[in-house]
């Protein structure tokens, strides 16, 4: 049952990815600007242009170009970046870890803040504490990560400058890293001075990304906790003599978390989508920041590669969430 579910989801995932590839390919090809013209110095001869067009395969029809490109992608060849003249896959893998670290830290923060607020709110339902949590999460939710980023820059970058507001790591530091997963590696190498420097740079973009998601988790989880807390089996647990905290943690949390989980999956993809602008805001050298440069430079192969990697990340997250949901739900596990 679980395996079957997994295979079906995998199939729909591939269909979605193919759809994404088609859409991004079509969108980019109708762009009026000519990327080749941007690469060459003014006054380049028509022959030069034609030669370069052929080099990048731009002289063939869109359908042909698509399948040539797709064939390459399936072999792990995403083409060569026009603006950076490097292998797209290499560029993307060079930047992806920075974005993944940022998004993961943000997700963990969001879950910690959101779940705490939800449990607190559910415990003290009907009091001013709950009303306060409602108002705070409602307002936090309405303000997107872009604005939170600016607010944080003002508050902790300028007014009380305790955090760095630019870059991923202090430029004067000597980095011993061999992978791009700086945060993970700094911990593994026990270089906690570097970990601290990385976190100081990461904290504000991560908080900006985490706050709206934390508010959503707080609202949804609190709502479903309150619903579950009125159900008979929770009443029964109270009658058995368990305290309210025990009741929430042992009986209610798992069942209440299920509906929240599916939504957190979708929202996590929004969070990762948010890294694009937040990385820009904090000059954080991740995939998103590179994506904006790629668009501005009309670097077609790079844009395609980045968008496809984002899409792959999104469908993988949805797949993981779906499997987790099935695993946690005995009805599906044994159905």
């Amino acid at each position: 049952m679980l395996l079957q579910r997994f295979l079906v989801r995998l199939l729909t995932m591939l269909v979605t990815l193919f759809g994404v590839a088609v859409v991004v390919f079509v969108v980019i090809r109708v762009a009026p600007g000519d990327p080749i013209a941007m690469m060459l110095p003014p006054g380049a001869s028509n022959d030069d242009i034609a030669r370069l067009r052929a080099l990048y395969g731009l002289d063939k029809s869109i359908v042909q170009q698509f399948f040539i490109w797709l064939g390459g992608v399936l072999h792990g060849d995403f083409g060569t970046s026009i603006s950076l003249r490097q292998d797209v896959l290499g560029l993307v893998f060079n930047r992806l870890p920075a974005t993944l670290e940022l998004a993961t830290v943000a997700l963990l923060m969001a879950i910690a803040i959101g779940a705490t607020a939800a449990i607190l709110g559910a415990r003290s339902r009907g009091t001013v504490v709950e009303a306060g949590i409602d108002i705070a999460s409602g307002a936090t939710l309405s303000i997107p990560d872009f604005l939170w980023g600016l607010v944080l820059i003002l508050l902790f970058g300028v007014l009380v400058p305790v955090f760095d507001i630019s870059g991923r790591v202090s430029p004067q530091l000597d980095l011993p890293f061999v992978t791009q997963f700086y945060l993970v590696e700094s911990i593994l190498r026990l270089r906690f001075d570097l970990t601290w420097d990385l976190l100081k740079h990461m904290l504000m973009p991560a908080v900006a990304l985490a706050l709206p998601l934390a508010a959503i988790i707080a609202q949804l989880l609190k709502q479903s906790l309150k619903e579950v807390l009125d159900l008979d089996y929770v009443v029964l647990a109270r009658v058995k003599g368990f305290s309210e905290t025990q009741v929430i943690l042992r009986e209610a949390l798992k069942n209440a978390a299920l509906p929240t989980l599916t939504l957190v999956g979708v929202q996590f993809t929004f969070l990762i989508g948010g890294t694009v602008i937040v990385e820009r805001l904090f000059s954080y050298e991740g995939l998103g920041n590179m994506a904006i440069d790629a668009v501005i430079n009309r670097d077609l192969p790079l844009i395609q590669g980045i968008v496809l990697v984002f899409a792959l990340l999104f469908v993988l997250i949805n797949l993981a969430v779906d499997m987790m949901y099935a695993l946690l739900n005995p009805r599906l596990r044994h159905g």
Partner: protein
Amino acid sequence: MDEARIARRGLSPRLWLAGGWLLLALLAAIFAPLVAPQDPLAQDLMLERLPPFWLDGAEPGYWLGTDSLGRDLLSRLIFGGRIAFIVAFAAATSACLLGSALGLIAGYFGGWADRIISRIVDVWMAFPPVLFAILLVAVLGTGLSSVILAIAIIDWTRFCRVIRAEAMSQARMDYVESARIAGYGRIGIMLREVLPNVLPSVVALLSLEMGIAVIVEAILSFVNLSISTDDPTWGGIIAEGRLSIHQAWWVLVFPLITLILTVLSFSQFGEALKARFDPVLR
């Protein structure tokens, strides 16, 4: 009933505060040439980086100070509101019409219509929205209509997903069967029984989406991809403010406050309207 009455009393100030700010901002934007104290484009290097009125060195007539080119901040904010509101109304309405219609059809009819629409939504949701927007504007070329079109193309899925789910749960209600018993056809039932029940959500989402459209426009201006660079936009002012943050913080603070108030107001206004529409609370 009593709880409902209490809830409604709690909602009203929210409706008035949010609606009040939006009306104020909208009127200022419409009558910008009359309201703005200065020409928003006039540069005067003698007046560069003037602080807001309560600080030393402020000039009368430049209430919120000036930017690094000596342009009046308040006037630029007021004129920037024009772009923001045009984008908000046009983009959100288009996204709403497209997404709600498709969501209603997918949710109520199910079957093939649902499968096709849901698959398209899946593909759309696999794009990072901000990157998608930047990409579209880059492709369509900068300009007001490109920005509006890009936002509508991206954000219709928001409506589609929510309305589809609500239409599906409505379709299971007995009053849908009861309408069949009364002799209504499928489209009649969709319009008469299902649509009125999903409308409050549509209204709330529409208002929320207007706030989102304002933000997306600001983000596009921030990365210099919105409309022509001469016209003042909230995002454009923010981009300048981000650069001169250590010399003139007010250039960032005032547009930021304006944006936050506007976005909060749109979302709260929508929620309050939805609660108003709820027949159980009426």
